[in-house]
């Protein structure tokens, strides 16, 4: 397919998607479950893609995602709470020590930058470690970050173990889609650049990559920092979605969830991560809800259906995927329109031939 036509088609699809979202927002009531799924799904898609950049494309098994999200969320919250509201939020710390606010977009970028700076610093020692050790060290750092943010002495900045709230949030589902979309697009561009190829070379064989002249330390650090940048932005978006921030919510369980999303989508597939994050959120928040409610068919009480059963079924599904569909939904391929287009063309041509032969 011609490159120009391809770009036009994808752009048209994007516009159509946003138009569809806009129309849906006009038609459906705002409390519809669909919007919860779409909003949370878009945010998780961004975080999952950022984790995939590290785990799937660079082959660095990092479990620090929740920590970087926490930094992003707090940075966003701290710098956007309106000055009037500060005395209410920081009620135990005399209104905190930061007395200015920045616009939302700037705060989102700051959230990413804060996470990236931190990642750069911890990357210096941690990235020398290999596979499991790297995983457990990043997990450890995430736990340390969580403890530091709950520390009373930092209260005037982080509000200790109390909630951060009253900062600007979003209502429309278009906002997270736009931000995540832009971020994911940047990641895709990065993956397709020469840096991306270097990342993949490192994933496939570190020693061979080094022999080809790739600076291992530099590229690993780069991947780690960029991934954390987007995790930070994702954390800020999550904070906006949840309307409150509390350090204790960013547990390692959150990292595991994101890791499962990445694996279900397929390690090394951006579109896979996006698809699976929407599926994951939809299944866990929406489609399997009925399993939590006590149901009667006639006078027969359906057994097992109690609160919590949804999660059990859900984790069994995950185990099945992990055990039997190890490559996930997309493997390491990307979703693209090419095969579909080819299929169409083939049919079209065949019909033409059929028509042609009939005419003879």
């Amino acid at each position, binding site marked *: 397919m011609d490159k120009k036509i391809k770009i036009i088609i994808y752009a048209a699809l994007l516009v159509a998607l946003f138009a569809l979202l806009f129309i849906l927002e006009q038609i459906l009531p705002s409390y519809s479950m669909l919007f919860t799924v779409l909003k949370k799904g878009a945010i998780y898609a961004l975080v999952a893609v950022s984790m995939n950049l590290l*785990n799937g494309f660079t082959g660095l*098994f990092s479990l620090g995602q929740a920590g970087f999200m926490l930094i992003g969320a707090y940075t966003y919250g701290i710098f956007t709470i309106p000055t009037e509201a500060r005395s209410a939020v920081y009620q135990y710390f005399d209104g905190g020590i930061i007395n200015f606010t920045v616009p939302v977009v700037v705060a989102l970028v700051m959230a990413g930058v804060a996470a990236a700076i931190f990642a750069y610093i911890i990357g210096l*020692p*941690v990235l*020398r*470690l290999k*596979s*499991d*050790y790297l*995983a*457990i*060290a990043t*997990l*450890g*750092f995430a*736990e*340390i970050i*969580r*403890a*530091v943010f*709950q*520390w*009373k002495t930092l209260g005037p900045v982080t509000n200790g173990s109390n909630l951060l709230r009253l900062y600007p949030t979003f209502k429309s589902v278009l906002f997270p889609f736009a931000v995540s979309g832009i971020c994911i697009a940047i990641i895709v561009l990065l993956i397709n650049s020469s840096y991306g190829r270097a990342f993949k070379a490192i994933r496939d064989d570190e*020693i061979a990559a080094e022999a080809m002249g790739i600076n291992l330390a530099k590229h690993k650090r780069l991947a780690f920092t960029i991934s954390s940048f987007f995790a930070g932005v994702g954390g800020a978006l999550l904070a906006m979605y949840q309307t409150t921030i509390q350090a204790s919510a960013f547990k*390692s*369980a959150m990292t*595991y969830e994101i*890791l*499962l999303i990445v*694996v279900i989508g397929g*390690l090394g597939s951006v579109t896979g991560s996006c698809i699976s994050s929407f599926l994951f959120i939809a299944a866990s928040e929406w489609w399997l809800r009925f399993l939590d409610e006590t149901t009667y068919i006639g006078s027969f009480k359906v057994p097992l259906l*109690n*609160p*919590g*059963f949804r*999660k*059990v079924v*859900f*984790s*069994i599904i*995950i*185990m099945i995927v*992990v*055990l039997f569909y*190890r490559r996930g939904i997309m493997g390491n391929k990307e979703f693209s329109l090419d095969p579909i287009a080819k299929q169409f063309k083939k049919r079209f041509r065949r019909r033409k031939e059929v028509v042609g032969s009939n005419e003879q």
Partner: protein
Amino acid sequence: MEFINTYLPYILAGISVGGQYALIAIGYTMVYGILRLINFAHGDIFMAAGFMMVYLSASMPLYISIPLVIILTVILGFLVERIAYRPLRTAPRMSIMISAIGVSYLLQNCAWYLTSGLPKQYPKIPWISASVSIGASTTTVVTLITPILTIVLIVALVLLIKHTKIGMAMRAVSRDFETSQCMGIKINSVIGITFIIGSFLAAIGSLLYFTNYSTVTPISGAMPGLKAFVAAVFGGIGSVPGAVVGAFLIGICENILKIKELDMTTFSDAFTFALLIIILIAKPTGLFGEKITDKV
């Protein structure tokens, strides 16, 4: 004397928790030594043992329920290996690790479902939850038993590894997976036995740990599990004595941070990880770990 009286309870608690971590850490270190897998589900098996005790002791006397808990935990550990890890034996290491995370997620959710997320009161085991006084401080018998029991079990384990046929097989498998297979060692049964030993010790650890903490929740296995893992890494993963030393050290340090005057309680969990990172950077193979050289 004043000094000892104030701080003795913290140190005693530290030693006792350390012993409990040690019992869990052995499960991690043995599995890692053989499969090169961080068994993330191990902490949840420990939690499951806690819940089994809660439910079983409600309906039967302790002298039946305690052995039954241990047997059921061992069966659970064995089944986890059989169902979730064995099919992935030839898969890349990351897949097995992810499978372990999946099992951990499953066990936590099952526990949540059975208990509706409410913390459950752990039954009092008569003799070991009694309190005794040492000097001016009072503590429970379990605090004193734990280190002794831990050391007895570990000596037994080390003897098993050093002097029996199965122990020799374990050492062979952990040295070289493929070669030992060629030498006629039945890998699957060795791995199965490793999981059985690990779960057995985790069950005993859970009896002691929850007697101390008195409530069980679906996520109460996560933190001790991670800490025990850190202990295993600290001592040099794959080494049993290393894991024990690491566990005692972490237990004691964590409790010293809980001393009121220090005002560092927030960091008692984070400290463990700080220790981990320091050891990983300074000596990545841990205190007693073997040096591994990668070949191209």
